[in-house]
């Protein structure tokens, strides 16, 4: 068994102040633990991993972890990561984004990285709200949920991130929650090993900005909600389409074997008579 707390001490930057900035009960800490366990399991050294993050609560992750890290502009983490991958294809790049970062500000970057199918791992932490900036509604806030910019509830339909990236052509799509932390690190290590663009959506509770406004209870209640409403993908498919309420599938949703961008690019280089990637 890999002890999270013990493993964390190896990977946290010693010069940072702890406890971290995330609120009491925030799920991002659990996701960070799962990410570290996944990296520990894949066996890469600290120098072989690049952690790229955008802006937001989840963007703080690159500050705390002792890999090659890059804290980039809002929504543009995937573009920076694409550049790093093309410059040095040997590196393993993990892109950490929040739901607003990935699907609102960086929505275009996300769909086009999926379409390009470049060998990156995207970890999208979905807490249904913009936590750091004061609780504005994000593209994944469920209908009729309150936010600081939607005092009477949102009237916009939310994104299903997994369906979105699947439709755009990602090779590997998985979803897990903070309640299923052990499954989350298994999904992440699969995603890191996978060639091609892989997306892992981690549902994470925001007890302060989202939970308190919508009377979802404490962090524990929100985690238990994940437990009660999650289903495995085969069990989810058996539900008739009209009867799906708040349930959502967890686990591996898409796993395709397709040539990635670098493979196609090296073929083009050969065609043009070059000898380098």
């Amino acid at each position, binding site marked *: *068994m890999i*002890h*999270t*707390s*013990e493993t*964390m*001490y190896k990977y*946290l930057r010693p010069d940072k102040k*702890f*406890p*971290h900035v*995330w*609120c*009491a*009960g*925030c*799920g*991002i*800490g*659990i996701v960070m*633990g*799962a990410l570290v*366990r996944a990296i520990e399991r894949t066996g890469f050294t600290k120098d072989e991993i690049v952690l790229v993050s955008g802006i937001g609560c989840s963007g703080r992750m690159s500050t705390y972890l002792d890999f090659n890290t890059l804290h980039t502009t809002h929504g543009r983490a995937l573009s920076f990561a694409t550049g790093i991958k093309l410059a040095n294809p040997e590196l393993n790049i993990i892109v950490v984004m929040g739901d607003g970062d990935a699907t609102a500000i960086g929505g275009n970057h996300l769909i086009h990285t999926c379409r390009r199918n470049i060998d990156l791992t995207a970890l999208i932490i979905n807490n249904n709200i913009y936590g750091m900036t004061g609780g504005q509604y994000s593209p994944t806030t469920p209908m009729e949920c309150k936010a600081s910019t939607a005092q009477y509830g949102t009237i916009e339909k939310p994104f299903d991130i997994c369906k979105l990236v699947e439709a755009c052509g990602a090779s590997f799509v998985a979803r897990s929650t*903070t*309640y299923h*932390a*052990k499954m989350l*690190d298994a999904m992440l290590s699969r995603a890191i090993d996978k060639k091609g663009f892989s997306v892992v959506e981690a549902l994470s509770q925001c*007890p302060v900005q989202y939970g308190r406004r919508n009377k979802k209870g*404490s*962090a*524990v209640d929100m*985690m*238990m909600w994940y437990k009660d409403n999650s289903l495995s993908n085969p069990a989810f498919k058996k539900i008739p389409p009209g009867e799906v309420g708040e349930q959502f599938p967890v686990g591996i949703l898409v796993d395709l074997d397709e040539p990635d961008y670098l493979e196609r690019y090296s073929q083009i280089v050969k065609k043009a008579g070059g000898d380098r990637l």
Partner: protein
Amino acid sequence: MKQKNDDPIHIFSRWCKKCGICIAICPKNVLESGTAGYPYAARPKDCIMCGLCDIHCPDYAITVKKNSDIKEAEHEET
């Protein structure tokens, strides 16, 4: 908080934010909230070392380990 010698649960209260996830997630109901709100092992003998509190702690403030393991590790270091 001082731990008993046979207690496998080690809580680093300086990093703990008292969110209560470890108390709720324990399948054997080992942990309880103490006077200051920090969790403590009320029934350490019931612990089955599953490590669920360890992997669900957002602040990496709890470790489940056999005391013999720790003693061995300390012995190796010195």
